[in-house]
């Protein structure tokens, strides 16, 4: 597949163009649009770690949290250091996004290193543990609002920035995966021992996957923080990690197109289900069930694994049988 830079520039131009029309949209729909963008970035970044490199991570929300809090802290502390005009504050915002990503990448490094020796189930639980530890640190950090939450961020995130970063992320991941690095990731996923014996430095690829995935999740966190304008540690808990995992699994691990589509579907679906509860012609319990997103997600996971483990667009050979 060719990924000429020109495609990227076209995408960015489209974003810029489209952003002129978003001024008049209903703020509720706008909220959904931005959330879709953020979720795409999260899903694509987790897909790198879990789908392409085969490291099952249940702690992705932790990286998002690091990015969200770091970038929020930066804009809250230094937001007007360059001046109070929009370009000035906006530059600080962009730097903050990048800073949040870097902080998250550092966290990714911290998580990636111990994970080197772990496989499958253990890795999943340890990543979950790290995510809980991150949450615990935030909950005890006064400058970050601890259990009160952190608010007051200026709403810098808009359609253009969100989708520009979406375009950059997708471009970045696709380029990465179709390079020699990509082959390295896939080799680690397919058969780590064979890869080691072929001289591939599996350590490097595993850590790289975590760091890049965490960076992107951190940037997504920054976008999120400057859109919702208020963040709370409980918003980055295990359930949030599960949300992202479901997107990756539904989309098909290893398929960027698949996870993008899954992210869109799984962002719109709960909003649609909200309106279902207004359809009084449906029986009560059905409406109650519709409100309960997690029951539906969990059933989705089970049914997907039983019937179509490769998700929407994943290829079955991605999860070729390993020796059990």
């Amino acid at each position: 597949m060719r990924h000429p830079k020109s495609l990227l520039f076209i995408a960015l131009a489209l974003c810029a163009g489209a952003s002129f029309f978003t001024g008049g949209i209903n703020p509720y729909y706008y909220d959904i649009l931005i959330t879709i963008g953020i979720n795409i970035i999260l899903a694509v970044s987790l897909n790198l770690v879990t789908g392409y490199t085969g490291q099952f991570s249940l702690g992705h929300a932790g990286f998002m949290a690091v990015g969200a809090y770091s970038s929020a802290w930066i804009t809250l502390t230094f937001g007007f250091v360059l001046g109070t005009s929009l370009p000035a504050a906006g530059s600080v915002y962009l730097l903050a996004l990048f800073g949040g990503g870097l902080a998250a990448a550092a966290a990714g490094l911290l998580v990636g290193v111990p994970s080197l020796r772990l496989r499958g189930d253990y890795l999943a639980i340890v990543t979950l543990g790290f995510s809980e530890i991150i949450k615990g640190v935030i909950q005890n950090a006064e400058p970050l609002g601890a259990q009160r939450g952190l608010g007051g961020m200026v709403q810098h995130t808009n359609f253009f920035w969100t989708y520009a970063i979406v375009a950059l992320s997708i471009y970045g991941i696709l380029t990465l995966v179709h390079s020699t690095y990509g082959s390295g990731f896939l080799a680690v996923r397919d058969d780590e021992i064979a890869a080691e014996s072929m001289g591939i430095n599996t350590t490097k690829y595993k850590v790289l996957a975590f760091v890049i995935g965490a960076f992107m999740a951190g940037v997504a966190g920054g976008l999120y923080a400057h859109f919702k304008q208020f963040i709370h540690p409980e918003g980055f808990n295990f359930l949030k990690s599960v949300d992202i995992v479901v997107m990756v699994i539904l989309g098909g691990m290893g398929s960027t197109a698949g996870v993008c589509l899954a992210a869109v579907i799984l962002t719109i679906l709960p909003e649609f289900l909200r309106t279902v509860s207004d359809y009084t012609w449906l029986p009560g319990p059905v409406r109650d069930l519709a409100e309960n997103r997690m029951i539906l997600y969990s059933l989705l996971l089970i049914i997907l694994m039983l019937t179509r483990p490769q998700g929407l667009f994943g290829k079955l050979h991605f999860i070729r049988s390993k020796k059990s």
Partner: protein
Amino acid sequence: MIEFLQQLINGLSQGSIYALIALGYTMVFGVLRFINFAHGDIYMLGAFAGFYTAPKLLSLTGGGPSYAGAALVLVAAMALCAAAGVIIERICYRPLRAQPRLTVLIAAIGVSLFLENGGQFIFGADPQAFPEIIADSAIELPASWGDFASLTITIGQVIVIGSTVILLAALRTIVLHTRTGMAMRALSLNPLAASLMGVNNDAVISFTFAIGSAMAGAAGILTSIQQPSIDPLMGINAGLKAFVAAVLGGIGNIPGAALGGVIIGVLEALVVGYVNPTYRDPLVFAVLILVLLFKPSGLLGKAEREKV
């Protein structure tokens, strides 16, 4: 000194609960090489099974809390959980046995979330008051023990520790001295060879799930005697700690699970009492990471060579 002993007692009784749950994790891993993420929620189901059956069962034994009634509730919960475990295995895990471990792990996560959120939907998210099946109270220690007389040991704690010991002994008998136990051990060593020797793998696996789930169910009831507030999410925390206990003791190793449970329970009590209660949960993760980094096979486990 007294406070230390008190914390030890607290830790021992809490650790027994973790040991019982850890057994399930370890046995299932032994035969299937997979972590049943949903195991902690079976513990929760046990508590709720007791919640719903206790009123009727207690009325059979005279209406109020009694040892006979409690035993009935315990057996009922264990049976219901065993059934639940077998059903879940049959529907969600058996079809995936040929699939890579990741698939069945995800399915297990799905089952766990389903049980938790389904539980919230059906039982309500608010904690429920578990009925009193044993009149719990502190045991009066004879004054002749001097200082030690100020220690508080409750009947509930004694029952928990006692029941755990009995159940562990029963399990050990099953595993070491019955044919099914032998089949379980054979399966965990080499499934293919076991089936060639006439072992019905499917039946033994179902049996393993049944026993493991029954243990978790027992843990659910024993816990509710001392902490009579049950809610659909109670399995998350306990399950996680029990999992770490199983890993600490050596996953796949039954005495290891018991040992791991006790160690985690005591460690927890000491950290909460002497250091900082907020470190209670991070402590468990820290133990897990340390074990996995330095001695992945656990305290009593043997290092497994991975064949290529």
